[in-house]
């Protein structure tokens, strides 16, 4: 069975570097790359009645936007390099969801870019990289 690498991709510079890095490893090892984009979402956040009413509609819009502006260009940029590419678009807590995706797809590695927040910033707001390192079910590569 060929290896699967899940790349957490949010369209940023750092994510780009992670994707490129993962592509290099995948080429070398004959692995499949899974571009995973997670829309930050908590089922426990508070919404106004109007937001409730429009949620289903907004969700569709958000998924469409993510698909066209993030997933599709990312996939297009790495296709034709001899590496099979899959995509995943999910809602949830970013680190938790990446772990779930990795587990479900039986991936062997997770790659993410690092945004390089200050230590204070990550203390206060938490960092995806920090969470992922603590909880990932498979080896995890943080690309600077």
């Amino acid at each position, binding site marked *: 069975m060929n290896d699967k690498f899940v790349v957490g991709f949010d369209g940023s510079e750092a994510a780009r570097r992670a994707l490129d890095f993962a592509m290099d490893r995948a080429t070398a090892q004959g692995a499949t790359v899974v571009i995973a984009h997670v829309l930050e979402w908590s089922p426990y956040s508070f919404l106004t009645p109007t937001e409730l009413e429009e*949620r*289903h509609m907004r969700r569709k819009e958000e998924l469409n936007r993510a698909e066209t502006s993030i997933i599709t260009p990312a996939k297009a940029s790495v296709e034709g390099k001899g590496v099979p590419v899959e995509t995943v678009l999910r809602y949830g807590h970013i680190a938790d969801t990446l772990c779930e995706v990795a587990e479900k797809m039986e991936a062997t590695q997770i790659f993410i870019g690092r945004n390089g927040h200050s230590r204070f910033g990550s203390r206060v707001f938490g960092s995806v990289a920090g969470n992922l390192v603590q909880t990932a079910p498979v080896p995890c590569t943080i690309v600077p």
Partner: protein
Amino acid sequence: MNRLTQRAVLAATAFLLFAGAAAAQEQTIDDRINEIFSGATGWFVTLIFSPFPGTSFPWIVAWLVIAATVFTIYFGFIQFRAFPHSIALVKGDYSDPNDAGEVSHFQALATALSGTVGLGNIAGVAVAVGIGGPGATFWMILAGLMGMASKFTECTLGVKYRNEFEDGHVSGGPMYYLTKGFAERGLPGGGILAVLFSIFCILGSLGGGNMFQANQAHQALTGVLGDFPGFVTGLIFAGIVFIVIVGGLKSIASVTEKVVPLMAVIYVGTALIILIMNADMIGWAFGQIFAGAFTGLGVAGGMVGALIQGFKRAAFSNEAGVGSAAIAHSAVRTKEPITEGFVSLLEPFIDTVVICTMTALVIIITQQLMIDEATGTYMLNEAGTAIKTVGDTSGVGLTAAAFGSTFSWFPTILAIAVILFAFSTMISWSYYGLKAWTFLFGEGKTKELVFKVIFCIFVVIGASASLGPVIDFSDAAIFAMAVVNILGLYFLMPIVKREVNSYLDRLKSGEIKKFKH
């Protein structure tokens, strides 16, 4: 800004200028608004609250209690049987991960709660205990427990018969289940009931969902800042509400939505601390509650007075049977409408059984209600309409005094809480009113704008009028919704029964599985 909004801003500015120009006669404005208001609404209040002939028992209170009892028995005490399952649903144990990003059970519950947890829990309870004595608390808790079944029934139907529009937005509530549900069962009159409900819902949103809130927010402000005319508070509030609901400034609303739960936690937390500090008195307080529930302990109206106040304030606070929550709950994403019914039954529990009881206990334990030492019964005020209180306070003032007797800083926190609760309740009710309005007049920007401007004008009226006429009208309008809604529920409850039986069978057989373990 489009032209409509511009026009609305102009109209609102003109109104504000008019009110401001008249500021020189500040005292008389409040008085005049008050006079016109009570003159215009008196007949409606009388009709809703008329007692059974020869008694002092309002028929509307009996209507709510009977309904809650009927639903409780008809669904076999569903509020107790399904309670653990309700909590599992809210936690998301049964939510399909593929539905992430849709409205969760928790979110629907939280939004519905922010519309109901509010002044009813702070001011309403104080009114109930102030008039009906500690015994009112017993009836309030009972009404809260029974009301869970009413809420369950209406919210299940709210989801089942909601309208899902092509663009993906949803509209639900009693007006939809009354029309569609009646049609489905081949019963006549659903349309008429839906129209009546919508009219009362608009009145309720202007009354309890708006004027009562503005009024109590003003009282809370004067309690902290000293006396100033009500229309000032009204204008400021109307301005902010206008920006949010017409201007679409969501940030204010979302900030409130986040701060309100925090205030609720602070409120309940402080109440708990006061109760723990007076732990030795809790037994005595419950003694007063039970004794008062069946004897009245000398309060105005005796036992019946305590019962009426308890039931009235519970219904006003948790809105079970009123139909408003069905509007908020109907946006949830679920394949089984009944699950939202299960979730919604937690609402009266949190609102009434937990939060209202906290308020009542604090008022009783801090001994704000004056007891005649010679007889051991409560002393009445000079007019004989309510129990004499330590600082001659009533409504939100009584709650502030009770909490303030332990923590002197609390009245300031409470004032902030009252203002935020009032604001979030107004935002919720402006939505309920708007849904009823668009049901009657159709969807459309201009039509919606008309309602929103009317809503803002009523904020000013509410803040200016004195408590009496406002609270009466608020109650009357909200209870009028319950008249229509409950009548409809009686005809539609077999549908809910079918749903609940089928769901519980499948849950038992393991066909409905948990996604989380």
